[in-house]
């Protein structure tokens, strides 16, 4: 597969503030790639570099095989961008802005435009200043999804959308993927990312800390296990990869309640040890994306 976006060792500083400190990002053509990180970690800066709005201090970036700074205009014919905070011209109607963006990109699919306006329940005749936050977002989303482009760059595109519209947005992203388009999706809504993304990259302080498919990332983390045993647990603590072990005797019985976290490659050993003590009940939970992120976001390395 060809790469839609390749970024390596990207650095960018604003005065004394270092926004990007050696960021790497790889997005395969045709995938939906989640781009995650805490506030101020450099997601928007990266996107602006990819759009040729900012000039990176050092490092390499390629968009659809070309240089985002020098080939900006040619590239933008094939790229649609939705910022997290859409600003419109106060006296232009939403419909005018959608058509303007369409014409300034590679073109606009008229029937798709009408369909999207309908699905997003957008009134295109309202003037820019009269739209609410969510509706401004919809204007940019309709313009992006109706454009005839190869790559969509979405920077927290659903901020302000209601849950129904969030649903419409997710269907639209899936349709775009089915058409073979590539999508870079920066988002804080983890359920959205979990639902849509083939792969994700997590960044912190301008650096990529994790990248891969969700399954890969899960594999790297711990599963939490809760069990009620008929007997006493034996040797659990000595299994490598077991953390946060808590054992509690159940009142008026020989049984014990056990809670622990275990790294994926030691799950087998833990199960074997538990069944030796006699299992009355067992629940095991893979880490949610949420836990995954909290672990990365809170790291103080």
């Amino acid at each position, binding site marked *: 597969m060809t790469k839609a976006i390749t970024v390596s060792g990207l650095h960018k500083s604003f005065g004394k503030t270092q926004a990007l400190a050696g960021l790497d990002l790889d997005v395969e053509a045709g995938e939906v790639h989640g781009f995650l990180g805490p506030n101020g970690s450099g997601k928007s800066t990266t996107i602006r570099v990819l759009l040729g709005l900012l000039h990176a201090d050092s490092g390499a970036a390629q968009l659809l095989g070309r240089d985002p700074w020098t080939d900006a*205009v040619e590239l933008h014919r094939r790229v649609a961008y939705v910022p997290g905070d859409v600003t419109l*011209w*106060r006296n232009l109607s939403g*419909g*005018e802005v959608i058509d303007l963006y369409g014409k300034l990109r*590679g073109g606009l699919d008229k029937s798709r435009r009408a369909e999207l306006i309908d699905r997003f329940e957008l009134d295109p*005749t309202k*003037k820019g200043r009269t739209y609410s936050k969510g509706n401004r977002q919809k204007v940019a989303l309709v313009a992006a999804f109706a454009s005839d482009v190869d790559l969509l760059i979405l920077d927290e595109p659903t901020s302000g959308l209601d849950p129904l519209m969030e649903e419409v947005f997710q269907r639209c992203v899936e349709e775009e993927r089915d058409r073979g388009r590539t999508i870079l999706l920066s988002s804080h809504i983890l359920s959205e990312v979990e639902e849509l993304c083939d792969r994700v990259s997590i960044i912190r302080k301008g650096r990529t800390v994790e990248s891969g498919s969700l399954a890969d990332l899960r594999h790297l983390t711990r599963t939490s296990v809760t069990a009620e045993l008929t007997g006493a647990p034996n040797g659990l603590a000595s299994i490598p990869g077991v953390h946060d072990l808590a054992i509690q005797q159940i009142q008026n019985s020989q049984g014990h309640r056990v809670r622990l976290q275990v790294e994926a490659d030691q799950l087998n050993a833990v199960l074997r040890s538990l069944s030796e003590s006699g299992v009355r009940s067992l629940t095991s939970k893979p880490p949610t994306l949420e836990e995954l992120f909290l672990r990365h976001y809170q790291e103080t390395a």
Partner: protein
Amino acid sequence: MTAAAFPVRTGVSGSRQLAGTGALLWFNLRRDRVVIPAWVAVTGLLVLSLPGSLKSVYSTPAERADIARQMLTNSSLRATYGPVFSDSLGGLTAWRIGGYAAILAGIMSLVVVVRHTRDEEESGRQELVSSAMVGRRAPLTAALLTALVANSALALLIAGGMAGQGSAGALALGLGIGGVGMVFATLAAIVAQFTDSGRLAKGLTGGLLGAAFVLRAVGDSTTNDGSSPSTWSSPIGWLENLRPFAAERWWVLALFAAATLVQGVVAYELAGRRDVGMSFFPARPGPAHGRLGTAGALAWRLQRGSVLGWGLGFFAAGVAFGGITKGAADLVGDNAKTREIIERMGGQSGIEDAFLATMVGMFGMLAALYAVSSVLRLHSEETGQRAEPILANAVGRLRWAAGHLTIAFVGAVVIMLLSGLGLTLGYGAEPGPILAATLVQLPAIWTLGALAVLLHGISPRLAPASWATAGLALALGWIGPALNLPQAVLDVSPFGHLPKLPGGDMSWGPVIVLTAIAAALVAVGLTGLRRRDLTT
């Protein structure tokens, strides 16, 4: 109407209407802690510097009496500066600078008021402020008080600084200039209730300020004692009729007070009846499908209203000034002395040409303000985050800038031609020489506009400084000659190099050189724009 459990006062009276005014006033003053003191200082020092400069130019009372008589005789100079009521240093200062200081006070006041009312609402910040313990009329009150503080400071500075020339006259001059400021502060407060854009509110009030100047000028061209109804209809005319340093007519101050009060009450009534963030005219729906397809078309769409406003204003002012040109050489008090003065100035046609040349020069300097404001659309689009999505499309930075710059530089041609057309119509003469004279101003206008392109191209943070350069050119052109400044300083303004047309000799040298300088500045600015980061 409302449930009894939550009684809501629906009237527009009550002390809670003003809750939070004090905090807002303090906040406004803090936000304006640089702009207001700078504006007050520049305006005040401009006034205070005049007596000394005038003294160095006209050192004896006899010379001053002579110049006063000359100025009073010449209707074109009366139109520009107003009549001279006293040949004392204080009187000459009030005559020469009073009207312009009043215009500066007016601009400061309207900007301050709109900035703290309509601009705040338009940006959405007002919503957050109004959700706190803030009365419905508190923001307007705080804005007007901010303007009052600024104008009082200016009045005090002038009254104190000019006291050496006579404390009564100094007080009258200070209060009159501050009074003009307050009239336009309250006028801006009314206009800001009707427009839903701060830019439009400032533009409209600025247009009314220009109209006040034209009314005074037209009135003063026909009479030499400020008694024309046209002069009396203008707040700037009230200032001269207050007659600082010439047997002050204190009752004229009541006009300022009355106008400020009436306009203030109207603004208050309107503000109390209006939804926050809205104007009285609901936004009409626009087309569901757009025809805009290029960055240039978008730029025109955004700027066409402003071009239209400037064009109409220039044309109307041209007609007014053209109309008073014919009388420029009419003798006021037919005597040998004035006839001699007129002969010295080139006779009837010479005086008319000189008047037209002065007016054309004034239009040129004002058109430079248009050019700067039009170029700075690039700046406001960029800092308002509206350039980013445009440039994320297949639009290069040069193409994006080209749309706005075309409107700035070609628009200057259009509005100058309109002013020339107006002058021609009002004057009733051959259009050729006057239109040529208006076009000759363009290289200087372009140079100041190009400077804005350069500053914005290098760094958006520097861009607002282009207002200062345009303001400097204006100040040098209007009052520089009276200050007896060395030629080297006067030469800083590009307008100083232009041939004085009609009447003077055409010289192509400065026209070509200035055009080349403008082109070079634009080229460097655009190169900078291509290379730098976008403001995010």
